């Protein structure tokens, strides 16, 4: 069976919609000339054509999206890399906080102040534990 590409699907969808519109104009234009049965039959065809039109549009969408599936996969992979890079920057910040705490601890040790040493050590451990 020959395959229909996205652009052809759109064209067919438009043609179905135009056919439905033509039948619709005829039905209302000849309302009194048509029997109830004929009107019902025409209307039924209109609904079928509208459904076909919608289905062909759906087909066009699916083909369009399928054509970029590889690009979507690549973007998802790049996103993971970016997130990992952002996490690494956060690690640099953490490293600096730790360095800051270490200097404070060094100063406290140099001062010989037991309270300051305990506080600085506790703060450094908190940062190290994350």
């Amino acid at each position, binding site marked *: 069976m020959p395959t229909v590409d*996205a652009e052809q699907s*759109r064209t067919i*969808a*438009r043609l179905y*919609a135009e056919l*439905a*519109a033509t039948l*619709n104009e005829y039905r*209302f234009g000849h*309302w009194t000339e048509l029997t109830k049965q004929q009107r019902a039959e025409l*209307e*039924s065809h*209109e*609904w079928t054509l*509208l*459904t076909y*039109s*919608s*289905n062909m*549009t*759906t087909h*066009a*969408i*699916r083909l*369009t*999206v*399928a*054509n*970029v599936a590889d*690009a*979507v996969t*690549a*973007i*998802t992979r*790049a*996103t*993971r*890399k*970016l*997130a990992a*890079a*952002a996490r*690494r*920057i*956060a690690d*640099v*910040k953490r490293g*600096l*906080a730790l*360095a*800051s*705490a270490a*200097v*404070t601890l*060094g*100063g406290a040790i*140099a*001062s010989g102040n037991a309270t300051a040493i305990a506080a600085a050590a506790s703060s450094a451990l908190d940062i190290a534990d994350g």
Partner: protein
Amino acid sequence: MRCCGPACASRARTRTRPNTLTLLVVLVATAACTRPVAVSRYALSAREVTARLPGATSALAESCRRAHSYRLRRTGTPWYEEDSTRAACAGRDSALREVLQANRALANYFGALSALAGSKTAEVAAQVDQLGDAASSAGPFDGSQVRAIAALAKFAASRATSGYQRSKLRDAIASENANVQAVTVALHQVIDRDFASYVTGDDAAATRFYRSVLTEGAGHEPLAAILARNDYDARHEASGAQADALRSLARAIDAIGRGHQQLFDARNHLGAKELLNGILSMARELDGAMARIDKAF
């Protein structure tokens, strides 16, 4: 406000003697100038646009069920179960999910880009200020030494984070530009043509339904006919607003693609003023589009 460029460097020179500290201050000021604000602004706007698509797809899914219910009611089934409309719209639902999946990949990419570009080097600077304070209170350093330690650490941190940040942003923008272009072109086509076709078709279904009902029964039930006509007018007007909003959304997606191309073209100068101006102009365009989209969905 942080000063940037030669003027700032000049002021720094007049305040302190020309020594290593001065050099470090100039380097720190220079590093602060090159923050990729354009990337951050672009990614935020782009992400906001992608966040609008689920609202549009929900409306289209609902519209399909309504259109099918018109058909059922006109073809001899006055009562129908929800299952029958769901089954009739399964194909559209599935296609809409696939569109959302592609859109989500873009949204996540912009989110990650935004997170990386917006990583606060200011936060790093604050941490370094703490280092300076700590060095000061540690004892065996005089004032100039403390300032030198802080400046050195600030420079090192800024280089470590913003250099790494820019290189990762540049890599991602360079490697993904073709993919972002492909996906935005596809989404633009789908929204501008296929979604618009759904709206037109569903509106045609509503027109068919109301016109048939009114033509058959207006003479017998004049009051019901007036109410039905009012209902139709409201529905038709909503369809028109949705069609306008979809056009805006399609243009916004197109602008996202163009914006990424601008970033790609300027990927070696992500802190450039011209790039920021271009991105800000795109962001203003997107803000206007989003206001129109929010009215309809």
